[in-house]
């Protein structure tokens, strides 16, 4: 979000805090896509994502008076949405205990050298405007296959852009544990992309 957009949000927020419903609706319109996207990625359910989006904006409205504007409105509702999504996942969660060893990642020889040389340096393709459709599907499948505790940390950090401190507080694990899960998730997803390029 640009500086101008943040300033526009501040103006709308001030009006909404004064009871202007149309200003609040305008704020909803500016942030609903991002909130819904987060909720859908986290829960993988369109029905849950729609409910989380509703609950998030209702909760934001109910707490408008407490919002002092130290953070951007968008970051604030994003955090509310992430918390709502995590709470819903916690309620639905089947006990999901995995060790790091269950995750895909690079293999090493006894001397600690890479056992398998990467397929090619496909990093340049990250700048392509459009991802290959099948690569997109492979990435979504690999993300879905991550153990829940790793998937949520990866999504919150690398896709939603939350800070380590925020994630640590929301997920209830230490910052080093957040970083460890993030690294393992990235390694597993990197493997999935590498495997895709090996096949095409």
């Amino acid at each position, binding site marked *: 979000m640009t500086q101008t957009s943040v300033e526009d949000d501040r103006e709308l927020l001030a009006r909404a805090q004064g009871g202007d419903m149309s200003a609040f609706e305008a704020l909803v319109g500016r942030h609903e896509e991002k909130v819904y996207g987060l909720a859908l990625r986290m829960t993988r359910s369109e029905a849950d994502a729609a409910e989380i989006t509703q609950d998030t904006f209702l909760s934001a409205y109910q707490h408008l008076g407490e919002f002092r504007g130290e953070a951007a409105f968008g970051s604030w509702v994003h955090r509310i949405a992430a918390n709502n999504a995590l709470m819903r996942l916690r309620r639905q969660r089947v006990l999901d205990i995995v060790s790091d060893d269950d995750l895909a990642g*690079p293999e090493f020889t006894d001397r600690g050298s890479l056992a398998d040389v990467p397929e090619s340096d496909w990093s340049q393709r990250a700048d392509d405007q459009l991802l290959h459709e099948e690569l997109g599907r492979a990435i979504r499948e690999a993300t879905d296959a991550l153990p829940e505790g790793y998937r949520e940390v990866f999504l919150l950090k690398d896709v939603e852009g939350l800070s380590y401190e925020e994630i640590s507080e929301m997920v209830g694990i230490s910052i080093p544990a957040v970083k460890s899960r993030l690294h393992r998730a990235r390694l597993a997803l990197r493997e999935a992309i590498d495997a895709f390029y090996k096949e095409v």
Partner: protein
Amino acid sequence: MFNCKESIDSLLPFLEGEMSPEDEEHLREHLSGCPPCVEFVNTYRATSGMCRKALVKSMPPEVAGRLRAYLRGKLETK
């Protein structure tokens, strides 16, 4: 000097600039003589952006419509 495993294990602090100068030197020394690890670093770094693109989801218009109706209903009764 690090080996490949130690280098890959330390990628996150390396990319976030949180490594000790000594460890960073060990890693850079390894990378200067290990092209597969350089490719690994490049692809590791690119992974997040590719995933972000693959995971973009847009909100169907009917969901946006239901959201507005829901919020109006809730807020008007307050």
